């Protein structure tokens, strides 16, 4: 992965950094034919992107820029109101808490998913007995439909009949209102989300570890580097490209997380676990009277936030590519 991503990133850098005359000199006979073939390979993907991503995005943008009542949603003819929906969303008292919760939820989920995933990947990389089987078992959370894993966590964290509280009571502690207290609701959904996200991080980071040549470790050991030093000075830096893509994908997926929070707390109580994703869903589908305009506006704000981080990642990739 290190070499692979660097080359891929390098390709991106070369495109913008190479001055025209160099490109001209590089043209071989059949180059134009090769360019056609390249885009022919890409044709299914481009068609797919246009039909299935561009169109829903356009519809969502349209929903957010007009004042849609249920009547105009069905009959058509909604008036164009520009950024009114966005202004309404920003002025809503739920905006600031939702923003804060989204940031906290995403950051905490990423830190723990990545950290635990990395620790587990390093641990399982040591190839002890049963390590392959146990590693496969760690992927079980991935198999369960989200509605089931979220419900199971809600069950376990129930204030009265939940197993977590029964254990707390058994050891003499006080039961905690995991899902019904404004202080703990965000913590509970974060824990469940981390649990669900560990397999993804484990798989990607483990294969990243596999891409590091064992000879490097041997050389480091010969130089007298201890286990911890080997990790910090050797493993971690070499994992940087894999880590970057894992973190970025993790971020993009976590921003979209809806089912876990919705099933466990519905975003409550009193908006204490509401994130942008759950807020958008609640506006559009969670009440008896749907408000599609504000829902689309919140959804678009979410995409813009993810986009920002995507740009940060591209900048990081360019820097990595430059170092090659």
């Amino acid at each position: 992965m290190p070499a692979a991503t660097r080359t891929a990133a390098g390709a991106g850098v070369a495109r913008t950094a190479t001055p025209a005359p160099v490109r001209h000199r590089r043209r071989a006979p059949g180059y134009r034919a090769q360019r056609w073939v390249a885009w022919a390979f890409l044709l299914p993907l481009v068609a797919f992107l246009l039909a299935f991503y561009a169109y829903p995005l356009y519809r969502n943008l349209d929903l957010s820029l007009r004042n849609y009542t249920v009547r105009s949603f069905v009959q058509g003819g909604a008036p164009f109101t520009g950024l009114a929906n966005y202004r309404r969303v920003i002025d809503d008292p739920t905006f600031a808490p939702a923003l804060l919760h989204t940031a906290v939820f995403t950051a905490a989920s990423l830190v723990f998913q990545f950290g635990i995933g990395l620790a587990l990947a390093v641990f399982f990389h040591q190839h002890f007995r049963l390590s392959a089987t146990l590693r496969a078992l760690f992927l079980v959370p991935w198999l369960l439909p989200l509605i089931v894993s979220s419900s199971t966590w809600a069950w376990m964290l129930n204030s009265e009949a939940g197993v977590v509280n029964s254990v707390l009571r058994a050891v003499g502690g006080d039961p905690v209102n995991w899902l019904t207290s404004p202080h703990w609701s965000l913590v509970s959904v974060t824990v469940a989300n981390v649990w669900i996200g560990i397999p993804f991080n484990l798989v990607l980071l483990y294969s990243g570890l596999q891409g590091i040549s064992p000879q490097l470790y041997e050389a480091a050991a010969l130089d007298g580097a201890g286990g911890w030093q080997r990790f910090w000075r050797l493993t971690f830096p070499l994992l940087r490209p894999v880590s970057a893509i894992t973190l970025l994908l993790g971020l993009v997926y976590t921003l979209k997380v809806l089912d876990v929070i919705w099933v466990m707390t519905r975003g409550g109580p009193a908006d204490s676990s509401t994130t942008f994703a759950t807020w958008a869903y609640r506006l559009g589908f969670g009440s008896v009277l749907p408000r599609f305009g504000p829902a689309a506006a919140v959804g678009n704000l979410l995409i813009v936030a993810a986009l920002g981080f995507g740009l940060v990642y591209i900048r990081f990739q360019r820097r990595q590519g430059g170092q090659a």
Partner: protein
Amino acid sequence: MRWLATRRRAVGAALAILVAAGGAAACSSSDDNSGSGAGSATYTIWDPYPQFDNSSDWVTLLKKCGTDAGVSVSRTGYDTTDLTSKALLAAQQGNSPDVLIVDNPVVSTLAEAGVLATTEDTKLDASASSPNLLAAGQSGGKTYGVPIGANTLALYYNKAVLSAAGVDPASVTDWAALTAALAKVTAAGKKGITFSAIGTEEGSFQFLPWFWGSGAQLSTLDSAGGVAALSLWSDWLAKKYAPNSVINNTQTTSWQEFATGQYAFAENGTWQLANAKKAGFQYGILPIPAKDGGTAPAPTGGEFVTIPVQKQTARYATAAKLVNCLTSSDNLLATDTTLSYIAPTEAVQAAQVAKNPELKVWVEAVKAAKGRTGDNLGTKYPKISEPMWKAVQSALSGSQSPQAALSNAQSAAAAATN
């Protein structure tokens, strides 16, 4: 390299088979698509009962009504929370079903969106339905559907728990008596009452009998009565008469708590009657008391059978035949028994009580019940209900006092309904 070639061929063949299979399956199921197309003889029905599959009594009844009307029926059950948005989306694309069965507070929203046809257009006969139940389906002087049945809330109680605590159920006639009973039950080592206060329409549904029972009206959430009702609930939680889990309970999970046999009271609805019989302990039913005595008005649950607007108005005649078949007196008795609902007409209510005298309490409760979108609230109701359930959540979880929570809710509701 030959093994590579063989492998490639195998993979290619496998992929081809998969695609073919997928295509075949897709084609074979696409004949279901011609449902509400131009002039076809298949009529589509959407209902919110996904728990009934094709072998159930409900679907058999639908198909029989179809045969009687001379058409074939294609039915889909959706999750009730999804059905509103699906109906709106379908109407936008001209893909509405021929008959749509929806929860009653949604009818005014769909009517306002122009999704539903009036009974004048479809020649549907709604005269036999009780007026208090029909109100939810009326807006602007027009009727948009017929109720299929009604359910409402009451207090189930555990006879053994109450007698062990020395409480006489008949004495629970107002809030003070109820709170006293809860105190006695908790002192005797059992749990008091369970209900659902979840942050969805279900929570509002369960809060309304107490809210209305204090004399408050939905147009003013922070009246003295409203605050009294919310304080009643938050005091119960503070004194541990009700468990903290009510904040996240659905009506089902609340029932499951009651079914453990540890609780004295549960606020729940007619649909739990079948479960109550399986509970394994003796139970009774009390009407929910109002603040100072009497029966509190409870909200009506239950669905309406409606006919969405179609481009081809000729389809209304047959659709109306289907609806009449579903809501005819003979079929209503069977339908409402399956759904555990109370019938919307006096005649069938009498037949239900004759068949099952236990239902008398429920019939009385339904007669005293109110539609949520009644009082001319219509589409304003959802804009008031959401701040209301948020206030309940805030107060019960301790983030705000009942007075503060309801004041905020009233400002939000007032802003949203203007």
